[in-house]
Protein backbone atom coordinates (compact mmCIF):
# COMPACT_ATOMS: atom_id res chain seq x y z
CA UNK A 1 0.00 0.00 0.00
CA UNK A 2 2.87 2.34 0.82
CA UNK A 3 4.47 1.59 -2.54
CA UNK A 4 1.12 2.16 -4.24
CA UNK A 5 1.23 5.69 -2.82
CA UNK A 6 4.70 6.18 -4.32
CA UNK A 7 6.39 6.52 -0.95
CA UNK A 8 9.73 4.96 -0.14
CA UNK A 9 10.22 3.40 3.27
CA UNK A 10 12.26 6.43 4.32
CA UNK A 11 9.74 8.99 3.05
CA UNK A 12 6.84 7.16 4.69
CA UNK A 13 8.63 6.86 8.04
CA UNK A 14 9.77 10.48 8.04
CA UNK A 15 6.29 11.73 7.16
CA UNK A 16 4.55 9.62 9.78
CA UNK A 17 7.17 9.48 12.52
CA UNK A 18 7.47 5.69 12.23
CA UNK A 19 10.52 3.54 12.88
CA UNK A 20 11.93 2.10 9.61
CA UNK A 21 13.21 -1.00 11.43
CA UNK A 22 9.68 -1.76 12.66
CA UNK A 23 7.84 -0.86 9.45
CA UNK A 24 10.21 -2.77 7.16
CA UNK A 25 9.86 -5.93 9.25
CA UNK A 26 6.10 -5.53 9.44
CA UNK A 27 5.80 -5.16 5.68
CA UNK A 28 7.98 -8.18 5.03
CA UNK A 29 5.91 -10.33 7.45
CA UNK A 30 8.90 -10.83 9.76
CA UNK A 31 6.86 -9.68 12.76
CA UNK A 32 3.14 -9.89 13.54
CA UNK A 33 0.94 -6.85 13.02
CA UNK A 34 0.26 -4.86 16.19
CA UNK A 35 -2.53 -6.08 18.45
CA UNK A 36 -3.23 -2.61 19.75
CA UNK A 37 -6.19 -1.18 17.86
CA UNK A 38 -4.91 2.35 18.31
CA UNK A 39 -1.66 1.47 16.55
CA UNK A 40 -3.52 -0.33 13.77
CA UNK A 41 -5.74 2.69 13.24
CA UNK A 42 -2.74 5.01 13.18
CA UNK A 43 -1.06 2.85 10.54
CA UNK A 44 -4.26 2.64 8.47
CA UNK A 45 -4.66 6.41 8.57
CA UNK A 46 -1.01 6.97 7.65
CA UNK A 47 -1.70 4.95 4.50
CA UNK A 48 -4.60 7.21 3.63
CA UNK A 49 -7.37 4.80 4.61
CA UNK A 50 -10.64 6.23 5.86
CA UNK A 51 -12.67 4.68 8.71
CA UNK A 52 -15.83 2.95 7.55
CA UNK A 53 -14.54 2.18 4.06
CA UNK A 54 -14.07 -1.28 2.59
CA UNK A 55 -10.26 -0.73 2.47
CA UNK A 56 -10.23 0.18 6.16
CA UNK A 57 -12.12 -3.03 7.06
CA UNK A 58 -9.91 -5.12 4.78
CA UNK A 59 -6.73 -3.64 6.30
CA UNK A 60 -7.93 -4.47 9.82
CA UNK A 61 -9.14 -7.95 8.86
CA UNK A 62 -5.80 -8.78 7.21
CA UNK A 63 -3.89 -7.45 10.23
CA UNK A 64 -5.98 -9.57 12.59
CA UNK A 65 -5.57 -12.70 10.49
CA UNK A 66 -1.80 -12.12 10.09
CA UNK A 67 -1.56 -11.84 13.88
CA UNK A 68 -3.42 -15.15 14.21
CA UNK A 69 -6.58 -13.50 15.56
CA UNK A 70 -10.17 -13.53 14.45
CA UNK A 71 -11.37 -10.11 13.27
CA UNK A 72 -13.86 -8.46 15.70
CA UNK A 73 -16.44 -8.18 12.92
CA UNK A 74 -16.55 -11.97 12.74
CA UNK A 75 -16.63 -12.34 16.52
CA UNK A 76 -19.59 -9.97 16.75
CA UNK A 77 -21.64 -12.34 14.58
CA UNK A 78 -22.83 -14.92 17.13
CA UNK A 79 -24.28 -17.25 14.50
CA UNK A 80 -21.04 -17.27 12.54
CA UNK A 81 -18.97 -17.85 15.68
CA UNK A 82 -21.11 -20.92 16.39
CA UNK A 83 -19.89 -22.42 13.13
CA UNK A 84 -16.22 -21.52 13.52
CA UNK A 85 -15.10 -24.78 15.17
CA UNK A 86 -16.64 -26.69 12.28
CA UNK A 87 -14.95 -24.37 9.79
CA UNK A 88 -11.51 -24.70 11.37
CA UNK A 89 -11.76 -28.46 11.70
CA UNK A 90 -12.89 -28.75 8.09
CA UNK A 91 -10.02 -26.71 6.69
CA UNK A 92 -7.57 -28.82 8.68
CA UNK A 93 -8.89 -31.90 6.92
CA UNK A 94 -11.48 -33.39 9.27
CA UNK A 95 -14.64 -34.79 7.65
CA UNK A 96 -18.10 -33.73 8.79
CA UNK A 97 -21.62 -34.70 7.81
CA UNK A 98 -22.57 -32.92 4.61
CA UNK A 99 -25.72 -31.39 6.15
CA UNK A 100 -23.64 -29.55 8.79
CA UNK A 101 -21.34 -28.13 6.15
CA UNK A 102 -24.30 -27.21 3.95
CA UNK A 103 -25.88 -25.39 6.87
CA UNK A 104 -22.70 -23.37 7.41
CA UNK A 105 -22.24 -22.59 3.73
CA UNK A 106 -25.86 -21.49 3.42
CA UNK A 107 -25.44 -19.16 6.39
CA UNK A 108 -22.26 -17.55 5.02
CA UNK A 109 -23.87 -17.16 1.58
CA UNK A 110 -26.97 -15.52 2.97
CA UNK A 111 -25.04 -13.18 5.20
CA UNK A 112 -21.97 -12.26 3.18
CA UNK A 113 -22.48 -13.05 -0.51
CA UNK A 114 -21.83 -10.09 -2.75
CA UNK A 115 -19.90 -8.14 -0.13
CA UNK A 116 -16.59 -8.85 -1.79
CA UNK A 117 -14.80 -9.81 1.41
Amino acid at each position, binding site marked *: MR*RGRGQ*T*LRAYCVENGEDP*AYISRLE*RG*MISPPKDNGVLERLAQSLGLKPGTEEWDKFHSLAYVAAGRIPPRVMEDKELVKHLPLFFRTITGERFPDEKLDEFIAYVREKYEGRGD
Partner: protein
Amino acid sequence: MVREWKPPYLSYDETHSRAEAFLTEHNPNRIIPVPIEEIIDLKLKISIITLPDLISRLASDSYLEPDLKTIFIDQSVYEFIPRARFSLAHELGHLVLHREFYEIAEYSSSEEYKKARNTLLAPEADRRFDIQAMNFAGLVLVPRFELNYYFEKAKDMARHGGIEPDNVPRYFLDYAASWLSKQFEVTEKVIKKRIELDTLWEFY
Protein backbone atom coordinates in the same frame (compact mmCIF):
# COMPACT_ATOMS: atom_id res chain seq x y z
CA MET B 1 32.28 -30.81 -2.36
CA VAL B 2 31.61 -27.08 -2.15
CA ARG B 3 31.72 -25.30 -5.47
CA GLU B 4 33.97 -22.27 -5.69
CA TRP B 5 32.71 -19.24 -7.56
CA LYS B 6 34.65 -16.41 -9.18
CA PRO B 7 33.17 -13.14 -10.39
CA PRO B 8 33.88 -12.62 -14.08
CA TYR B 9 36.69 -10.21 -14.94
CA LEU B 10 35.22 -6.82 -15.67
CA SER B 11 37.19 -3.72 -16.63
CA TYR B 12 36.22 -0.33 -15.21
CA ASP B 13 34.88 0.68 -18.63
CA GLU B 14 32.78 -2.48 -18.83
CA THR B 15 31.41 -1.72 -15.36
CA HIS B 16 30.69 1.80 -16.60
CA SER B 17 28.68 0.36 -19.52
CA ARG B 18 26.66 -1.83 -17.14
CA ALA B 19 26.01 1.14 -14.84
CA GLU B 20 24.92 3.31 -17.79
CA ALA B 21 22.56 0.57 -19.01
CA PHE B 22 21.10 0.42 -15.52
CA LEU B 23 20.61 4.20 -15.45
CA THR B 24 19.03 4.22 -18.89
CA GLU B 25 16.46 1.73 -17.67
CA HIS B 26 15.84 3.03 -14.16
CA ASN B 27 16.74 6.74 -14.20
CA PRO B 28 15.99 7.74 -17.81
CA ASN B 29 15.51 11.40 -16.92
CA ARG B 30 18.99 11.50 -15.39
CA ILE B 31 17.75 12.89 -12.09
CA ILE B 32 20.57 13.99 -9.78
CA PRO B 33 20.91 12.98 -7.00
CA VAL B 34 20.02 9.58 -8.42
CA PRO B 35 16.84 8.45 -6.60
CA ILE B 36 18.37 5.17 -5.57
CA GLU B 37 15.89 4.35 -2.80
CA GLU B 38 12.95 4.98 -5.14
CA ILE B 39 14.54 2.69 -7.73
CA ILE B 40 15.18 -0.09 -5.21
CA ASP B 41 12.04 0.18 -3.12
CA LEU B 42 9.39 1.34 -5.60
CA LYS B 43 10.60 0.21 -9.03
CA LEU B 44 12.45 -3.00 -8.27
CA LYS B 45 10.26 -3.74 -5.24
CA ILE B 46 13.23 -4.79 -3.15
CA SER B 47 12.57 -4.42 0.57
CA ILE B 48 15.09 -2.47 2.61
CA ILE B 49 15.29 -3.80 6.15
CA THR B 50 17.42 -2.22 8.83
CA LEU B 51 19.30 -4.35 11.35
CA PRO B 52 21.08 -3.14 14.47
CA ASP B 53 24.79 -3.98 14.78
CA LEU B 54 25.05 -5.51 11.31
CA ILE B 55 28.46 -3.91 10.81
CA SER B 56 29.90 -5.52 13.92
CA ARG B 57 28.54 -8.93 12.95
CA LEU B 58 29.32 -8.80 9.24
CA ALA B 59 32.09 -6.23 8.93
CA SER B 60 29.97 -4.83 6.14
CA ASP B 61 27.22 -2.22 5.82
CA SER B 62 24.65 -4.39 4.10
CA TYR B 63 23.88 -7.59 2.23
CA LEU B 64 21.43 -8.86 -0.36
CA GLU B 65 19.28 -11.93 0.23
CA PRO B 66 19.56 -14.81 -2.28
CA ASP B 67 15.94 -14.27 -3.40
CA LEU B 68 17.08 -10.77 -4.54
CA LYS B 69 14.02 -9.28 -2.85
CA THR B 70 15.55 -7.94 0.35
CA ILE B 71 18.53 -5.80 1.26
CA PHE B 72 19.50 -5.80 4.92
CA ILE B 73 21.33 -2.66 5.99
CA ASP B 74 22.89 -1.62 9.29
CA GLN B 75 20.57 0.69 11.22
CA SER B 76 23.20 3.38 11.85
CA VAL B 77 24.31 3.32 8.20
CA TYR B 78 20.69 3.73 7.07
CA GLU B 79 20.40 6.86 9.18
CA PHE B 80 23.37 8.50 7.46
CA ILE B 81 21.82 9.01 4.04
CA PRO B 82 24.95 9.52 1.86
CA ARG B 83 26.51 6.31 3.14
CA ALA B 84 23.21 4.42 3.01
CA ARG B 85 22.76 5.40 -0.64
CA PHE B 86 26.17 4.01 -1.51
CA SER B 87 25.60 0.78 0.45
CA LEU B 88 22.28 0.23 -1.29
CA ALA B 89 23.78 0.95 -4.72
CA HIS B 90 26.61 -1.44 -3.85
CA GLU B 91 24.08 -4.23 -3.28
CA LEU B 92 22.47 -3.33 -6.60
CA GLY B 93 25.91 -3.78 -8.11
CA HIS B 94 25.98 -7.33 -6.80
CA LEU B 95 22.48 -7.91 -8.13
CA VAL B 96 23.37 -6.68 -11.61
CA LEU B 97 26.90 -8.08 -11.88
CA HIS B 98 26.90 -11.19 -9.70
CA ARG B 99 23.51 -12.80 -10.09
CA GLU B 100 25.08 -16.23 -10.42
CA PHE B 101 26.51 -15.98 -6.90
CA TYR B 102 22.99 -15.62 -5.50
CA GLU B 103 21.80 -18.65 -7.44
CA ILE B 104 24.48 -20.77 -5.82
CA ALA B 105 24.69 -19.28 -2.33
CA GLU B 106 22.32 -20.46 0.38
CA TYR B 107 21.83 -18.37 3.50
CA SER B 108 19.09 -16.84 5.58
CA SER B 109 21.01 -14.74 8.12
CA SER B 110 23.98 -12.39 8.17
CA GLU B 111 26.14 -15.07 9.81
CA GLU B 112 25.22 -17.55 7.07
CA TYR B 113 25.90 -14.92 4.41
CA LYS B 114 29.37 -14.38 5.81
CA LYS B 115 29.94 -18.12 5.81
CA ALA B 116 28.63 -18.47 2.22
CA ARG B 117 31.06 -15.78 1.03
CA ASN B 118 33.98 -17.40 2.82
CA THR B 119 33.06 -20.76 1.36
CA LEU B 120 32.26 -19.76 -2.21
CA LEU B 121 34.77 -16.98 -2.76
CA ALA B 122 38.52 -17.32 -2.45
CA PRO B 123 40.19 -14.17 -1.00
CA GLU B 124 41.11 -12.77 -4.42
CA ALA B 125 37.62 -13.46 -5.81
CA ASP B 126 36.07 -11.90 -2.71
CA ARG B 127 38.05 -8.70 -3.26
CA ARG B 128 37.00 -8.56 -6.91
CA PHE B 129 33.39 -9.23 -5.89
CA ASP B 130 33.40 -6.14 -3.67
CA ILE B 131 35.47 -3.85 -5.88
CA GLN B 132 33.21 -4.46 -8.88
CA ALA B 133 30.10 -3.68 -6.79
CA MET B 134 31.75 -0.54 -5.38
CA ASN B 135 32.74 0.66 -8.85
CA PHE B 136 29.20 0.02 -10.06
CA ALA B 137 27.74 1.94 -7.09
CA GLY B 138 30.04 4.89 -7.74
CA LEU B 139 29.21 4.97 -11.45
CA VAL B 140 25.46 4.76 -10.80
CA LEU B 141 25.36 7.44 -8.09
CA VAL B 142 27.98 9.69 -9.71
CA PRO B 143 27.53 9.12 -13.45
CA ARG B 144 30.45 10.03 -15.69
CA PHE B 145 28.75 12.73 -17.78
CA GLU B 146 27.21 14.48 -14.78
CA LEU B 147 30.45 14.28 -12.79
CA ASN B 148 32.31 15.99 -15.64
CA TYR B 149 29.64 18.66 -15.89
CA TYR B 150 29.56 19.45 -12.15
CA PHE B 151 33.35 19.23 -11.84
CA GLU B 152 33.75 21.92 -14.51
CA LYS B 153 31.11 23.95 -12.69
CA ALA B 154 33.12 23.65 -9.46
CA LYS B 155 36.17 24.98 -11.31
CA ASP B 156 34.14 27.94 -12.59
CA MET B 157 32.85 28.63 -9.10
CA ALA B 158 36.38 28.59 -7.70
CA ARG B 159 37.59 30.96 -10.43
CA HIS B 160 34.66 33.29 -9.70
CA GLY B 161 35.87 33.34 -6.12
CA GLY B 162 39.32 34.37 -7.28
CA ILE B 163 40.94 30.95 -6.95
CA GLU B 164 42.71 29.23 -9.83
CA PRO B 165 42.21 25.47 -9.24
CA ASP B 166 45.52 24.53 -10.89
CA ASN B 167 47.43 26.72 -8.44
CA VAL B 168 45.95 25.05 -5.34
CA PRO B 169 45.22 21.48 -6.48
CA ARG B 170 44.79 19.89 -3.06
CA TYR B 171 42.67 22.69 -1.72
CA PHE B 172 40.55 22.69 -4.86
CA LEU B 173 40.04 18.93 -4.69
CA ASP B 174 38.71 19.23 -1.13
CA TYR B 175 36.53 22.15 -2.10
CA ALA B 176 35.15 20.36 -5.18
CA ALA B 177 34.59 17.09 -3.29
CA SER B 178 32.68 18.90 -0.59
CA TRP B 179 30.42 20.70 -3.06
CA LEU B 180 29.94 17.69 -5.37
CA SER B 181 29.07 15.40 -2.46
CA LYS B 182 26.03 17.57 -1.81
CA GLN B 183 24.97 17.56 -5.47
CA PHE B 184 25.20 13.76 -5.75
CA GLU B 185 24.24 13.02 -2.12
CA VAL B 186 27.20 10.76 -1.49
CA THR B 187 30.20 11.07 0.81
CA GLU B 188 33.25 13.14 -0.15
CA LYS B 189 35.25 9.91 -0.18
CA VAL B 190 33.03 8.54 -2.99
CA ILE B 191 33.46 11.75 -4.99
CA LYS B 192 37.25 11.68 -4.63
CA LYS B 193 37.35 8.05 -5.71
CA ARG B 194 35.23 8.81 -8.76
CA ILE B 195 37.44 11.78 -9.67
CA GLU B 196 40.49 9.57 -9.28
CA LEU B 197 39.07 6.69 -11.34
CA ASP B 198 37.94 9.01 -14.13
CA THR B 199 41.33 10.80 -13.91
CA LEU B 200 39.69 14.21 -13.74
CA TRP B 201 42.29 15.62 -11.39
CA GLU B 202 45.81 14.86 -10.42
CA PHE B 203 46.13 13.31 -6.96
CA TYR B 204 49.10 14.25 -4.84
